[in-house]
């Protein structure tokens, strides 16, 4: 295979991201013998990515997030350190066609799709229309852009339940379910305000909402030279507020036949635009086995590691080869899935308080160890979770021969994870993956939002409470000092009596 250093048209790759994905990308960049550079805001100085990088360049912004959205500053940093390619990670500028074009105009490689492909798939409406035109299944919908004046009436005609989404959206932001059509106009106004704020673009579309849907997505790889393969599907139905928290592959919802159909549909969609890069085609999967195209993410996905674990394919490595102009070295026959993998997203949040984000220092951080246990994280002990960024602390990924064994291994790994100083969802995740509904694959995308009781913390057994209070009391100086002073006091009283 193509693995000698002189094949690379660049010797340094700049990572334009932060957190766990920056560290994840750097790991493969450095393993391939390339130099890894990173840009970072001052708030991220004490993170794993900055520690790992061969070159770290500080960037500034009005807010920390703004720094990572400043394309001109990032391209200047790439020039400054002699990087020949930029990896955008996910989020931030990863699906920004203008940034991709600016990177290429600067004579650098964008480790992603062409700007045209980002443009085609970045807008949900355009993407949906293109996919429908190419003959693939999409849900019945009303698109505001087709005729803004009649949007509300057309949305009403699709019928309830309806899902209203921002055209320029992603990541669950600004999505609203309408079950009662009398509330349609109010929900549209609300969704538009959120869309305007998150994406600077208030255009909406409405589509038929599939009740109790499963979210199934397919990993694809293309080289922009006519070759596209799929790297199997992922089941991502465990969500709260439209955000995934547990993902697994293979999907327990699919028969072998349905699996082949959905994976080949995804590869077909990517092939129809001669896609270049790793990407994900997302589908809504209904209880009757029907599935509709949802969107295509033209970047590496948060949950990509589970696909890597069952296939042995390093998706970042494939992204790098393709960006270097190589043809895909893998054929569909090379994708041989084996075993089962689950990912849990560890968040700084209080599940019992409606999953509100928490912040705090990472005073003690000890990831779980063991065979087939993978910990993808960007934080280090002594760091902190702040309100400046997304509250995801780490991704815990485990692999085993079958689903039951994977669930057991995940439960054990969550139990072995030590993270003190900041409230996390670790205990909740452990209860969830060992629960009967998860075991039976009954969890659909809105299940958690409808079962807030699952997130409540069970009452502590008295023995546990006593152990905690005993340990806390002895660790608190005023209490320890008072208790320890008593024998001395007896001695003192004795002396005084004499």
């Amino acid at each position, binding site marked *: 295979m193509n693995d000698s250093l002189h094949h690379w048209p660049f010797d340094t790759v700049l990572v334009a991201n932060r957190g766990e994905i920056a560290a994840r990308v750097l790991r493969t960049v450095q393993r391939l013998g390339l130099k890894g550079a990173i840009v970072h805001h001052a708030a991220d100085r004490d993170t794993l990515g900055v520690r790992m990088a061969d070159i770290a360049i500080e960037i500034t912004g009005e807010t920390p997030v703004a720094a990572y959205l400043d394309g001109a500053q990032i391209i200047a940093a790439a020039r400054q350190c002699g990087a020949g390619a930029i990896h955008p990670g996910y989020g931030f500028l990863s699906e920004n066609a203008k940034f991709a074009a600016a990177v290429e105009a600067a004579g650098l490689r964008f480790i992603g799709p062409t700007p045209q492909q980002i443009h085609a798939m970045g807008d949900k409406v355009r993407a949906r229309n293109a996919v429908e035109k190419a003959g693939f299944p999409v849900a019945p919908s009303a698109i505001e852009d087709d005729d803004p004046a009649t949007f509300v009436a057309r949305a009403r005609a699709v019928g309830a339940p309806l899902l209203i989404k921002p055209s320029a959206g992603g990541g669950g932001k600004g999505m609203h379910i309408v079950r009662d059509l009398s509330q349609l106009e109010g929900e549209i106004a609300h969704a538009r305000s959120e869309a305007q704020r998150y994406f600077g673009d208030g255009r909406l579309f409405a589509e038929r909402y599939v009740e109790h849907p499963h979210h199934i997505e397919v990993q694809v790889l293309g080289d922009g030279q006519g070759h596209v393969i799929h790297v199997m599907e992922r089941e991502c139905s465990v969500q709260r507020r439209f955000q995934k928290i547990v993902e697994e592959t293979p999907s327990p919802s699919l028969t072998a036949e349905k699996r082949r159909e959905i994976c080949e549909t995804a590869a077909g969609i990517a092939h129809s635009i001669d896609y270049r890069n790793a990407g994900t085609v997302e589908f809504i999967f209904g209880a009757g086995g029907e599935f509709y195209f949802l969107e295509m993410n033209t970047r590496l996905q948060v949950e990509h590691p589970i696909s890597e674990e069952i296939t042995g394919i390093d998706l970042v490595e494939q992204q790098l080869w393709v960006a270097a102009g190589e043809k895909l070295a893998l054929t569909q026959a090379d994708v041989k899935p084996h075993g089962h993998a689950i990912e849990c997203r560890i968040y700084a949040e209080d599940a019992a308080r409606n999953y509100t*984000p928490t912040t705090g220092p990472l005073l*003690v951080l000890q990831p779980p160890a063991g065979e087939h246990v993978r910990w993808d994280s960007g934080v280090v002990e002594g760091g902190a979770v*702040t309100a*400046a960024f997304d509250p995801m602390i780490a991704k815990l990924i485990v692999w085993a021969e079958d689903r039951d064994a994977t669930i057991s291994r995940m439960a054990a790994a969550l139990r072995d994870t030590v993270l*003190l100083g900041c409230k996390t969802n670790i205990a909740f995740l452990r209860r969830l993956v060992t629960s009967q509904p998860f075991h039976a694959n009954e969890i659909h995308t809105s299940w958690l939002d409808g079962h807030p009781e699952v997130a409540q913390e069970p009452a502590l057994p008295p023995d546990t409470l*006593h152990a905690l209070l005993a340990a806390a*009391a002895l660790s*608190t100086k005023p209490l320890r000092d008072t*208790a320890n002073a008593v024998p001395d006091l007896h001695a003192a009283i004795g002396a005084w009596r004499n």
Partner: protein
Amino acid sequence: MKSTFKLGAAEHAIELSRAAHGYRLHLGDQVIPFEMESCGAHRARLRIAGHTHDLRLITAGDDVFIQLDGEAHALRYVDPLAHFEATARGGAADTIRAPMPGSIVAVAVQEGEAVTRGQALLVMESMKMETTITAPRDGVIATVAYEKGQTFERDALLVALQPAADAEGGAA
């Protein structure tokens, strides 16, 4: 002397005393003997109620973080003096603190402005959702601590009203 620890929403009043070996936890009318020894950085072995637990434990100010049997817990030592002051002060809502970390989407009032109960003061965003913060009572705005676009942590002071007596005096 009794000391209080907060664990979640619950408060537990306890006492700690020495025993011949180790210590005793006093909780209500229960007396529970235990022994605990340190074994390395932030590690301890606790023997209590016939069980031995290997703990991870760290303190930060009044917070005690404990990993026990695969689960993390946070306890807060409530300083007896602070505890007294908080109960004595009562419930006058002069300050509005952040219920969760987030950022400011819009600020609707200025310092010195008179507001009525329920009036929108600012809009914050957290968990990708907007929340409107309203005035808890009639009053005059003393402080607006953040500008649009700024981020804050949980419990941060967002808005302060002038104390009720001052506001009445100003209006008279």
